[in-house]
């Protein structure tokens, strides 16, 4: 399988994990390890920077695991840029999952503020991975201002509803010059496999693993699904045919 490259960094795994919602930090760690993921998101607001023994961070100290801090809680570009700067300083990474959702109900991303913050943060040297609607034009606009990837949602975050935005995801994948990571709503390994079959570069999963009956086994299931989906994509899936081929073709007269 081809390696995933984002901002010149290589990843073996195309499965990214969120670290919230787990019943314990230890369970989260075990699930992350089982998933094979090399990039995990961490909500800045959850990290206790006052102590150097933050529970979340101590459970993520593995050589192959990279942190992707997120700005969850920011309601506009200004707040997100502040949070990003704190994150870069405290966590010593310039990678950032940009999340601006002023709507605390459905956590819908704010396209206008996200574009503004991406531009500013890219100029400040951040590697920005913005969480956005499955909006093909916004993706191109983000490319123009220096985004490192785009992270369109499959369906509302935490909903487990799968790829409701599939028609737009296909357009985004077709047009994108940066990696496309399907971010929210992936509820089952089959959704992840489908996203990969479509040609997504990676998927990010949290709720479906964290609140599963057995999060560790579920993480393994997602690992396999992502690999299967990617392998299928690279192996060129057969075309789906809606009807049988006619036995007397309309163009037979040309022969």
């Amino acid at each position, binding site marked *: 399988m081809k390696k995933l490259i984002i901002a010149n960094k290589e990843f073996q795994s195309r499965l990214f994990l969120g670290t919230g*919602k*787990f019943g314990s930090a230890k369970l989260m760690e075990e699930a992350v390890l089982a998933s094979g993921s090399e990039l995990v998101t961490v909500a800045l607001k*959850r990290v206790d920077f006052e102590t150097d023994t933050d529970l979340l961070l101590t459970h993520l100290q593995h050589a192959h695991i990279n942190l992707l801090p997120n700005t969850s809680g920011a309601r506009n570009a200004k707040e997100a840029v502040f949070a990003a700067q704190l994150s870069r300083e405290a966590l010593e990474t310039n990678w950032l999952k940009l999340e601006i959702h002023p709507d605390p109900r459905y956590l819908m991303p704010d396209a206008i503020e996200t574009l503004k913050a991406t531009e500013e943060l890219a100029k400040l040297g951040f590697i920005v991975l913005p969480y956005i609607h499955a909006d093909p034009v916004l993706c191109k606009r983000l490319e123009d201002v220096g985004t490192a990837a785009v992270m369109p949602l499959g369906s509302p975050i935490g909903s487990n509803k799968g790829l409701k935005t599939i028609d737009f995801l296909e357009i985004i994948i077709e047009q994108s010059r940066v990696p496309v990571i399907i971010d929210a709503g992936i509820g089952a390994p089959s959704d992840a496999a489908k996203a990969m079959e479509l040609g997504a570069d990676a998927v990010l999963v949290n709720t479906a693993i964290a609140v599963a009956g057995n999060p560790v086994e579920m993480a393994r299931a997602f690992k396999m699904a992502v690999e299967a989906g990617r392998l299928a994509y690279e192996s060129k899936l057969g075309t789906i045919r809606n009807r049988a081929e006619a036995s007397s073709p309309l163009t037979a007269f040309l022969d």
Partner: protein
Amino acid sequence: MSFKELYNSQNWEEVKKTIYDKTSQDVEKALASDRRTLEDFKALISPAAVPYLEQMAQLSNQLTKKRFGKTIQMYAPMYLSNECNNICTYCGFSFDNKVKRKTLSEKEIVQEVEEIKKHGFNHILLVTGEANQIVHVDFFLKAIKIIKSQFANISIEVQPLETGEYKQLHEAGVYSVLVYQETYHKDVYKTYHPKGKKSNFDYRLETPDRIGEAGIHKIGLGILLGLEDWRVDSFYCALHLDYLQKRYWQTKYSISFPRMRPAEGIIEPNVIVTDKELLQLICAYRLLNEEVELSISTRESEKFRNNIIPLGVTSMSAGSKTNPGGYAVDTGSLEQFEISDERSAGEIAALITNSGYEVVWKDWDNVLS
């Protein structure tokens, strides 16, 4: 339409009738729906829903996990003052309760904070009575300045303020403001609050609007369980929540469930809300609204708190003192009510962990405000 207009368009007795007329069919329809309405909420809090409590609890558990994961946030209340000019017949701080009053000095606030921090808290709730001469917005701003570096998240539960004052508090770093209507029954409200600024029902009713306009991140609502019919009162509270959520769409909301507890010089509850009924109410809120935060305080018993963790709540207090100086400075001062669950923060944290849930001490950062 303002909430006052919306409120006035409803009639208490009619609302009550529609709740008590709900049938098992209404409940089943509400349970089967995946986008529930206020009519569904009425069915879920109705007597007809009582036989469905197990199903409600199962659904509440699933929905809460989906949204909040297996986590419970912890916070500690810190009472800054028990001065109060209101007469509230159910409250230990009531003006006519002739006992010694106390307001913490700056030094005392520091001492209390030190003690609270020892228990691991990073989210704090500042509480006072209503005594505008002594405990006013400047007093709050001073207190916030003192404690801000110590806490990631500051909430306040004080007298209703003006929009401009809420803006000042927002800028000073207050994340959340809690203000309970106590009861939405206007006439009954007057009998419980005969004197003081709090006797103005409408001013209190419109307080959440002022908080929303000021841009505060989270608004806490609630009724005092024990004053009036909890079903009708809770419907009005849910109506209020629904109204606010549509108008102040960038704001988060939380619901608390204070159940009347004994306090010095106060009356007996008018209505007894049982554990079963409180659970029904908690589950009904979760089924109505997947995003609203639900909070349980130390007013509740050990048994109830031991078992409520997976059923819909998202935050709990622990080791609480309900008197100013209660943690370190003046442990014997007048308390607002007697707590029921006296276990320490460490014990409650262990309880949460043993239930398979993660204790969240920090879920905000001042850098975001």
